[in-house]
Every structure is written in structure tokens, then in C-alpha cells.
């Protein structure tokens, strides 16, 4: 699947690398801003209390 992505990207190798870095940055931003806070509410909570 990453091979297909590489072939879809236009331009010479250095342009593709820059485009790839932009895509990765966008993906990380989306994960940090929306996905991870959402996942955090679902996974097991970290307990620190005695009960």
C-alpha cells in the first residue's frame, strides 16, 4: 500500500519525499488532535487511587 502511494505521488524523488513528509505531518497532527484524545477516553483508565 505504501508502494502504491509512492507511485501516485508526482514529480522527481526529492519532490515526492517532501510531499511524503507533509502527508506524515498531517497524519500525526490529526492523530494528536482528534484520534488520540478520543482513543484515550475508551482504553482502560490509569488508576492511581487506593480503593
Amino acid at each position, binding site marked *: 500500500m505504501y508502494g502504491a502511494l509512492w507511485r501516485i505521488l508526482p514529480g522527481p524523488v526529492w519532490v515526492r519525499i517532501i510531499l511524503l513528509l507533509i502527508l506524515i505531518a498531517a497524519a500525526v497532527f490529526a*492523530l494528536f488532535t482528534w484520534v488520540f484524545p478520543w482513543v484515550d477516553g475508551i482504553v482502560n483508565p490509569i488508576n492511581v487511587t487506593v480503593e
Partner: protein
Amino acid sequence: MLGELLLTAGVLILLFLGWQLWWNDAIMAGQQSTAASDLSAEWLEEARATSGDAPAPAPADYGDPIVGPASYPNGESFAVMYVPRFGEGSQRRVAEGTGLDVLNSEYLGVGHYPGTQMPGQVGNFAIASHRSAYGGGMHEIEQLQLGDAIYIQTRDGWYTYRFRDFEYVTPDTVGVLAPVPHHPDLQPTDRLITLTTCNPLYSTAERLIAYGVLESWQPSAAGPPAEIAADVATWGS
């Protein structure tokens, strides 16, 4: 194809852990610290407004500490905790209740066990906070040394506790919350503070308990204790 999916899943999980333990932790620590500074400044301002600018000449001893209400509504912040050993920016609001709504809150962070005593009261003022992630209000707890100060500020004044000892217990050891820890049948005579958090770091298998004993108290009108007056002055700036 399958290999790429598995690799992607692995990278996502590592990214999530990085987000939870460092990125989000650092952001929430900053937010909680700022919220605590604001509350502290509000109470100091209140005290200045009622008592005037010039503090009364300090007596050697302010007598028995004022003890606030026996309980608060869940989630209400009624104190600010500051432990110089935890480092700059470690001040946190203390709110009633130890649910995730308090401990994982972006402006609270430290929770008071309902039913345990209040700051300055004879018995046990027991609080909990995260050690890693969610702002880690007790991240540096294992660095406490005998006699280290644990400051609790309320609307009424400043309570100075001195760290006494650690205890490592299983998560079901509620005896640490008793007015006399582990002896629920005894009448308390000391004014204790009990910090509870998870242990070891990045695990929840055990609980690390830190006990402190009240050393002194001074009313809000007297301002913050001299040892931390310089620190407090930088809060919110």
C-alpha cells in the same frame, strides 16, 4: 500488504504512547499549573483586599490552624498544592473527589479522598494524583526527602507539612486513608497529609504512599510562607 498493516499498527501504538506519556502530559501539566497559579493569586488578592496592603506584624505562632468545611461538592477546587521538590511549575489545584473527572482534568489534577480530613485538621488529609500522564501532579514523588515541605494553600491560609516517610502498598490498601493510617480504630492526635499515586512509574501494579506531618500554619493575610514567597511571586507571570 499484511506486513505493512502490522508495521503501521505498531507505529500508531508507539505514537499513542508518546502522545499520552509525554506530549499530552506536558500540555496538561502546563494547563494545571497555570490554573493553580490563578487560584492561588485569587486568594492572595482576596486576603489583600480584606486586610489591606501592610501585613500585620507576625506573631511567633498563629495557634491552631483554621479548618475549612468538612466537604465540598465533587470537582470543586478548594486548595493548591505546592511541593518545591517537585520542581518549578508543579503547583496543582486540589479538588474534591478522586474520579477521572478530577484526576484527568486539564485544570485540576489532584483529588481529595471524600471522607478524609481537610487541610490542617487532626487526622489525615488524603489526596491522589497521576504520576505519569495527565499532567503527573506527583511525577517526582520518589524524590521526596525527609523534611521536605508540602505546602497546601486554601482560602484561609497556608499549611506547611513536612514529608515523613514512604510506603509501598497494593491498590486495595485503603488503610492508608484512615485518620491514623492502618489503625481505623484509633483516635488521631496528629495532623497528617497522605499523598497516593501509582507505582512503579508507568505502571499501576502498586501504590506509592507519602506521609507528611503538619509543621505550621499561617493565615492568608500573612501571605505565603517566607521560604516560597519568591516562587509564589513568579506564578502567573
